[in-house]
């Protein structure tokens, strides 16, 4: 019995520990853009989040806490996009082209929180062969001439790839755009729940054995 208790003592923390490790947190980034140089310009903002050509695991991109001293106009929405800016939209990669293209009068600044999540980020299956990519762009009044970016070919201010291992890769083409990653030190709710259950079970087992079993 002592041997059994020893095994449980060793096993339970391990279960709790690996329960945390195998789950990833969403990728959260704080985005702010200094738009002073184009303040007063009527143009467009574009948020797009699209899957790859091969088998792609589900994922979402959330644009939240959108804030600006500019003026947001009417959007044109394509694909699986819900919500409105401000304050937030969610783009899913379920369809080939998921796009939120909104009229916008630039002020001095704009900011938002970008969260990439879903199974492709939180629990990569090792089967998918394509990631998904989020892109943010700013355009002049013609809707295609890029603003505030060195990417004159495609006009992206920045892109974020979701890699097949759930990590993300940022490519920033815009000097006035700051994209700061906020990797959460707090485990995801599911992971925390598993950890708590594991620890509670461990404690209760230790109490049980220490009560009924002679030392």
């Amino acid at each position, binding site marked *: 019995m002592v041997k059994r208790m020893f095994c449980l003592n060793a096993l339970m923390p391990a279960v709790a520990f690996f329960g945390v490790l195998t789950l990833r947190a969403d990728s959260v980034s704080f985005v702010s853009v200094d738009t002073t140089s184009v303040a007063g310009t009527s143009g*467009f903002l*574009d948020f*797009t*989040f*699209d*899957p*790859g*050509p*091969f088998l*792609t695991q589900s994922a979402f991109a959330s644009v939240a806490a959108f804030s600006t001293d500019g003026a947001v106009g009417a959007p044109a929405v*394509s694909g699986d996009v819900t919500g409105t800016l401000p304050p937030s939209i969610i783009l899913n*990669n379920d369809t*080939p*082209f998921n*796009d939120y*293209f909104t009229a916008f009068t630039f002020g001095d600044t704009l900011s938002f929180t970008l969260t990439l999540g879903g199974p492709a980020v939180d629990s990569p299956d090792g089967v998918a*062969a*394509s*990631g*998904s*990519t*989020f*892109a943010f*762009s700013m*355009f002049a009044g013609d*809707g*295609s*001439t*890029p603003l505030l970016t060195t990417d*004159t*070919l*495609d*006009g*992206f201010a920045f*892109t974020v*790839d*979701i890699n*097949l291992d759930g990590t993300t890769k940022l490519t920033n083409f815009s000097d006035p755009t700051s994209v700061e990653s906020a990797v959460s030190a707090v485990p995801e709710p599911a992971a925390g729940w598993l950890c708590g259950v594991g620890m509670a079970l461990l404690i209760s087992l230790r109490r049980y054995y220490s009560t009924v079993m002679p030392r």
Partner: protein
Amino acid sequence: MNRTLIVLNLICTAGVLFAQSAPTPEVGLDVNMRNEAVAARGWPLVIRAAVISTDGQALTIGLKSGPWTQALHLTISDASGAVQNWPVQLVPPATPTLSLSGIVNAEAMWLLAPSDTTSIADGLYSLSVTLDTTSTASNGTWTGKVQSTTASVQIEDEPSPLAAVDVNNKYLAFAAYGRLHGDTANALTALGTLISLQPDNLEGYKEKADLLAESGDFVDALTLYQTALYKFQTANPNPAEPATLLEIGAANMSDNLAAQMRNISTSVHVTASGLVYSHTSKEFTGTVTVTNNGAAAIPGPISLVITGLPGTVTLDNSTGTLGLNGYPYIHALTSGSLNKGQSVSVPVRFGNPSMGAITFAAIAYSGM
């Protein structure tokens, strides 16, 4: 009466057979690929003697010493019959002994450099070749003397502007000279210029394709043949005769390419990023990554052949197209090797006006 006819027939047949038992070479001659050429001073001259066996019978030409081309004697005369002494260079033959049979022919080439034609006076010149082995033939080879057909070349100042036919003649001459002179780069430049000036010049495509094939670039050679065929078919929807040379050339390039390229799909893993739409380029862009999962390094070049694209989707940054189906391909690695565990990524750009799903299979090949 019938018996008499039969006997006569047999005699005639025997005569024909007897005549055929003595194979004789025939020699044809041209200048810059024309029997009656026109060339400007400053252009190169390529003088070609084509030797073929009469009736296709087996025939060997060999000399006691030196290559068979030493039995060829080129004579150039001006309009008055005065023999000219142009500083032509005889290109060394591939083999010292010439063996002919069937419709196979052999060619001997003389080159006259562009710098050497600048000093030739205006006028019409005739050229002929004598093939003479009467005192030099080695044992068991053909002995005799034959005269070639006659070719001519009109030398003049380069017209300005050049007519279309002159453009064709000029750059084909420079290409042929460069090719035979071992200057492939200049030959390719000449053919590139010709094609840029005359995008429908099928001879230019064919010559460039053959030149690329000589250096092992069967992919681009095939592309050029396919382009030429496409242009021919576009210009001649109902041709009186098929473009046989182009079709044979394309088939040969396909065969060469198939022998050269190696499907490495079992040794690599091909993955992709998301393909995001750009409102600027109106394209879906992303990257495709090739990872060597095999046990050994894979020598480059490595390309991805894209198959199964939806009909309305195009790979806009393809390196070229492949095969009669026109599958686009893109170079992932142009040189070096992809070591074990190493990856290489290549940007991809797709036109997709219907905004539908972009799906395809990417087949990895080395050797192309």
